[in-house]
Structure formats: structure tokens, C-alpha cells
């Protein structure tokens, strides 16, 4: 671990939303915790009223580089991540070229290191070119410098049951996990939005809940059969929550994620035909939103994943059917989760730390992330002002994407500081400096 990241004494922060305490950060680790700490030469941060949490870990981020640097780069995406309270992100594989070889995942990994805002952990494609025909060299990606553990064709479902079975079996060799984008392709041909009352009126081709649920049901049974580890991306329906709950009760090794937007927004918004609300899986009904919140609260859903998906404006300033699917999310995730889960009394800040950090790090096998706020642990720590209120202005975000569905909404909670490996990437709610990566190269 690098040793030149400075010394910071955080005074009086509410640790995981509990009792106030001090945190001394020195040389990249939490050196001490307790009350009334002092340290020679430390920068002191008065954190009264702030909540200290482990740095957030996103299991689902689209950084777009290589290939779509007009939409986002590793640099801009990870700046957004740091501002949103993240210290690690999993970069999805649907870049151009696809991250289906050791070379591409190492490139993305290196770009992340060079940027220095968060840990960038590339996700490897399950199949060559995301084509769903042939397994990519999963082992080579696992053994690469990027040490890939999560594999996903996200954006496209691994719908061939044999291929899915083989992928689940194969990743056991290196403790990998297959993260499935659950979408039965035949049931969703041309799909534009959730199939239901609203799609009937709008005349937009429906994306039925059963297309997600049937794949999840199949996959949990496959995971059970071959004794492997399955992660379900962006669960969006009440029925999916029930199937995953059932699978967990049977002891199946499955984890699941929900996006902030699926915790808040419904398909009623599509009545505007504004493509900022176009996303895959689509916004569902209020009953689904409530079931997802309940599932996240009771542990059926393990983590919040942003599915941060920036797009250039021309891909959204068009007809609904022409528009790209996806929403930005890194800079609004904390606020949306506070709004939908904490302020509703469904979870505590300690639970928040679990669903946005600890559980996510465990799924991705990131040893230095999602750790407790204790002496000796890596100093990936954020300070949050839960009393802050702010209005979402996409034009002011660090991400290049302006496609935030929360535009104009007033949301609670603001990230005041982000410490990444002991270095403040964000201070006073603003970007500070990246982690001095030169010292860390080779340390990872």
C-alpha cells in the first residue's frame, strides 16, 4: 500500500449512522478509531452531522471506453463515481472492442489506474463479442493484471441454456461469477417499455416481466445444478424478487442487484415519450417498485448497482423508438437510495453500507473494498451529509452523459468527501485530486 497519501483526522462523524467518533487516516489505512483522537500534522475535518461510510462499490457501470469516448471515458466516468461516493466500479464489458480478451480488460484496468479516482475492475464478456455463441477466454481474463472475477454479456442475455450452464461451470475454476442480464430475447423482440397498462395506451411494444423472470428461474436452477455462483443484474420486477427469494431459501448461491432508478421511477413517466426514461430493463409499475424496495430491505436483493449508462445527447433527442436505452446514475445513486430506502425507514445507514459497499465488494471479490471502518482497514471511506438537499442538474455533472431521469428532482444527501486508499478524491463536495497513482503502480 502506498505511503504518501497524507494524514487526515475526521472528527465526530457518525460511523455508519451510529455514535459519533473520530477516524484517523494515515498512509492509506484507517490508523485509529475512537473519541478525541489527535495526530501531529494531520488535516482535520470537522465531520459533525456527517455520516461516515465505506466507499461505495458499483457492481454495474458503463464507462464506454474503449470505443465510445463521445459518451464517456474512464476519466470522466470515474470522476463521476468519486463525486457519487464510490471508491470502486465494475466496468461493463460492452465496449468497442468488447472486453472479451485479457488485452482489453488490462487496457481498461490501466486506464482506471492512470485516472486514479476509483478502483476500476473490468467485467469480462462471457461470450466472444457478446455474440452468445462461444465462450470468451474467461481464464485468461481472470489471470490477467485486471484479475477479472465478474463476467457478463450485460446488455445482452446469455440466453442459450447450454452456454449459460458451461459459463457457470467454468468460472468455478477461479472463483468467478456470471452476472446475467436476464432478458428472454424472443419475448422482447422490438421491446420499448414495460408491457402493461401504459404500453397498451401508448402503442409501444411491450417488454413483459415474464421475459426477465423466466430467465432468472432457469438460471438459479442451473446455478444449483452445477454448484456455481450467479449474479442477477438489475432486477426489475416483483416476480423476479420472489424467484430469487425462493432460490436463496433453497441455498442456491445467487446474488442480485437493483438500480436506483428502479427503486423510484415507474412506467407512467413514459407517457411523456421523453427518451430520458428509456432504459433496459424498462421502468416498471409501482407494485414492482415496492417489491424491489422490500427485497432490498430484507436481503433478497444484495446490492444496489447503478447501471450508469451515459449516452451522447443525439441518442436521446429523437423519437422514443430511435433512442438508446440507459440512464446515468453514479452521481445520484446515494441520494436516490437515501430517499427511497432510508427516509422511508426501510433500511439504516449500516444497511446502506452493506448494499452499496460490503456486499458489492464481496460479489466482485475486491478484498480492499467494502471493509469495516476499523483500525488497520484500507481507508476507502466517504462522508455524507444526510441533511443536505439538492436539485439534480445533469449539465453540472462530471459524467459526460446528460441523460439523468432525475433531472429537476430535489433529492436528499450529499457526498462531502471521498477517501480512496487514504487519499481524498473529493473534498467539500468537490473533486480534489486523483490518487497519486505513480506510487501505487505495482502495488495492486
Amino acid at each position, binding site marked *: 500500500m502506498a505511503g504518501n497519501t497524507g494524514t487526515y483526522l475526521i472528527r465526530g462523524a457518525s460511523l455508519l449512522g451510529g455514535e459519533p467518533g473520530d477516524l484517523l487516516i494515515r498512509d492509506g489505512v484507517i490508523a485509529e478509531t475512537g473519541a478525541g483522537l489527535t495526530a501531529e500534522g494531520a488535516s482535520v475535518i470537522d465531520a459533525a452531522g456527517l455520516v461516515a461510510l465505506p466507499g461505495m462499490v458499483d457492481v454495474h457501470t458503463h464507462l464506454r471506453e474503449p470505443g465510445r469516448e463521445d459518451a464517456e471515458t474512464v476519466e470522466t466516468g470515474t470522476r463521476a463515481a468519486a463525486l457519487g461516493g464510490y471508491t470502486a466500479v465494475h466496468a461493463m464489458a460492452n465496449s468497442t472492442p468488447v472486453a472479451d480478451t485479457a488485452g482489453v480488460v488490462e487496457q481498461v484496468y490501466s486506464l482506471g489506474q492512470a485516472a486514479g479516482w476509483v478502483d476500476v475492475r473490468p467485467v469480462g464478456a462471457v461470450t466472444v463479442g457478446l455474440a452468445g455463441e462461444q465462450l470468451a477466454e474467461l481464464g485468461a481474463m481472470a489471470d490477467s493484471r485486471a484479475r477479472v472475477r465478474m463476467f457478463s454479456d450485460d446488455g445482452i442475455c446469455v440466453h442459450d441454456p447450454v452456454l449459460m450452464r458451461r459459463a457457470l461451470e467454468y468460472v468455478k475454476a477461479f472463483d468467478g461469477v456470471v452476472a446475467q442480464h436476464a432478458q428472454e430475447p424472443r419475448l422482447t423482440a422490438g421491446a420499448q417499455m414495460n408491457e402493461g397498462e401504459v404500453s397498451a*395506451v401508448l*402503442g409501444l*411494444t411491450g417488454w413483459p416481466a415474464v421475459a426477465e423472470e423466466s430467465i432468472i428461474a432457469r438460471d438459479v436452477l442451473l446455478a444449483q445444478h452445477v454448484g456455481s455462483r450467479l449474479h442477477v443484474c438489475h432486477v426489475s420486477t416483483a416476480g423476479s424478487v420472489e424467484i430469487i427469494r425462493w432460490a436463496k431459501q433453497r441455498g442456491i448461491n445467487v446474488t442480485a442487484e437493483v438500480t436506483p432508478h428502479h427503486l423510484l421511477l415507474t412506467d407512467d413517466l413514459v407517457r411523456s*415519450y421523453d427518451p430520458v426514461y428509456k432504459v433496459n430493463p424498462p421502468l416498471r409499475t409501482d407494485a414492482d417498485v415496492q417489491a424491489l424496495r422490500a427485497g432490498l430491505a430484507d436481503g433478497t436483493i444484495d446490492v444496489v448497482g447503478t447501471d450508469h449508462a451515459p449516452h451522447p445527447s443525439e441518442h436521446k433527442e*429523437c*423519437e422514443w*423508438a*430511435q433512442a438508446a436505452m440507459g440512464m446515468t446514475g453514479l452521481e445520484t445513486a446515494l441520494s436516490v437510495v437515501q430517499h427511497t430506502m432510508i427516509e422511508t425507514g426501510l433500511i439504516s445507514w449500516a444497511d446502506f453500507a452493506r448494499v452499496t459497499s460490503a456486499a458489492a465488494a464481496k460479489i466482485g471479490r475486491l478484498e480492499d473494498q467494502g471493509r469495516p471502518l476499523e483500525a488497520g482497514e484500507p481507508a476507502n471511506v466517504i462522508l455524507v451529509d444526510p441533511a443536505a438537499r439538492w436539485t439534480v442538474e445533469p449539465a453540472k455533472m462530471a459524467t459526460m452523459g446528460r441523460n439523468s431521469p432525475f433531472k429537476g428532482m430535489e433529492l436528499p444527501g450529499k457526498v462531502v468527501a471521498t477517501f480512496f486508499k487514504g487519499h481524498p478524491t473529493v473534498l467539500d463536495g468537490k473533486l480534489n485530486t486523483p490518487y497519486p497513482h505513480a506510487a501505487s503502480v505495482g502495488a495492486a
Partner: protein
Amino acid sequence: MKHLLSTEDLSLANAIRILDTAEEMAAVGDREVKKLPALRGRTVVNLFFEDSTRTRISFEAAAKRLSADVINFAAKGSSVSKGESLKDTAQTLSAMGADAVVIRHWASGAPHRLAATDWIDAAVINAGDGTHEHPTQALLDAFTMRRHWSRLAGTGSEGADLKGMRVAIAGDVLHSRVARSNVWLLRTLGAEVTLVAPPTLLPIGVEKWPCSVSYNMDETLEQGVDAVMMLRVQGERMNASFFPSTREYSRRWGFDDNRLRSLDALGMKDTIIMHPGPMNRGLEISAAAADSPRSTVLAQVRNGVSVRMAALYLLLSGDTREPAAPALAYAGTHSTKESN
């Protein structure tokens, strides 16, 4: 009214106003000189992203009878990468000074996008968008029904609604913008609508619509109906398993000669048969039905010009035009707005 985007949010007052104005316009069509100076100097653009000669010439005739300048813009092309975007097209038309844009688009909601964005500040008339709505078709259908219904009642049609009229709409409801616009408008006008279709061609969620649903054409006819509207069905739907064969479709859901005879047998001498065109004779409607005295197919075409004149006139004549409104399209609201 600034725009005419859908019938879902068209108020009863505005619907009646359009229909009454269309009656006045129809009178113009009976004159030797079929032209009014009302829109002289105004420019109407027919912006068609999808082929539809019938609808385009109907709008063209309507605009010309009102003395507007008409520009036809056939903008085929299906993706941003292949050509100009809707935004650029709209801004181009705006720069050319279009006062009204009549838009036909294969994508549901495209007219809403034009109306809700600042790309163009013209009145937008939806001439059919994807499988969403086709409001002027529904208005011309209502106009045709209202004349018939008023004649039976022995009253004039002006100011009248369709209270008590029983209308069956049969066919591919799932893919039909005509059906959607008719369901909303007929509800507003007080008619009782029954959709008749195979379950595969009804949208999930149809149970929330203000109408009843039947899978049985003969039962629907037996229960009494004042107008039967047959929707065009595409034979290719068969290949996507919406129905087993065109013959089976015809037997179960088509308006064939037997059903034409059954109207007589059931004593429904005043029941009319409607079709928005173009017809698939022998598939959803038999030749005898299409050509029978009950058929209003040609009257619908004629009335289409009057209704479109009324829509253009009301949107462009000035007295109802609102100042430029900001984008209205947000959560839980609809993206069109009525001024009264």
C-alpha cells in the same frame, strides 16, 4: 388547442367543436368553388416518415381548400445513422416558416416529441404515429357516425354527441392506432364500444380501457350494434403466430357475407359498416360487405377532408392559438394541453 396529438386528452367540448366546424367545411365542399381564403399566407407541411398516400392527399386537399401553402416532405428513413434526425428536420421546417406540421411517423410518440420540445414552434397535427394514435381518422369516423346517428334521431348533427350508440371495432387492435383513437374519442362522445378480436391481437392492459372486449364476432352482432368498424389486418401477422391462417382469421373475425346477412336476419337495418381503408377484401371484410349500402367507406374518405380542414382551421386561425408553451411532458401528465 395548440396541437392535435391524440384523442385521449381531447375534451368533449373541443371534439364537438371540431366536428361542428367540419360540418361547416363540408358545406364548402358542396359548393361550386370549393375554396375558402381562411389560411391564405399560412404554410402547412405534410411531414411523412411513412408512406400513406391517402392520408397525405386528404390533408393536402384540406389545406388547399383553406388556401394554405402546402409543402409535402416525404422523409423516409428509419435511423439516425441513415439520415437526418427528427430534430434537424423539425428545425429545418421551423426555419422555413412552417405554421403547421402534419406528421405521419412509424414511431409512436414522434408527434409528441415535436410538440414537447423546442425544436419547432408550429402547430403539430398527428396524422398517425406508430401503433399509438390517429386522431383525425377517429374524428372523421365520429363525424360519419354522428351524421348517421343524428339522421336516425331525426335531429341535426350540430352540437350532437354519440350517446347510446353501440359501436363494435373488430380486428387487429394491438397494432392499430385507429382503434386506440376511436376508443378514446367514442368514450368522450358517449358511445358504447366493444372491441372484437382474437386475444393475441389485443394489448395486455386492454381491460383498463373504457370499453368491453369480446372474442366472438357473432355474439357481439347478436347483442345489437349500430356500427361495425373493421380494422385492416396484415396477412403477415400470421407468420408471427398472431393467428393460424388468413382463412381462420376470416371465418372467426372477418365481416363476411354470412355476417352481412345476419344483420338483416337480426333486424338491424340501420347498422353501418365502416373501414378506415385500405381494405383487404376477402380477409377482414368481404366484397359484398364493402360494397353494400351499409358501407360508409367512401363517406369516411369524403368526411376526412372536412375534418382535416376543421382541424387545420381551428389550430391556425388564431383565436385558439396559445402562446408558445414550454415542454409539458412530465411524470403523470400528458404531453398535450387543451386551452379550453
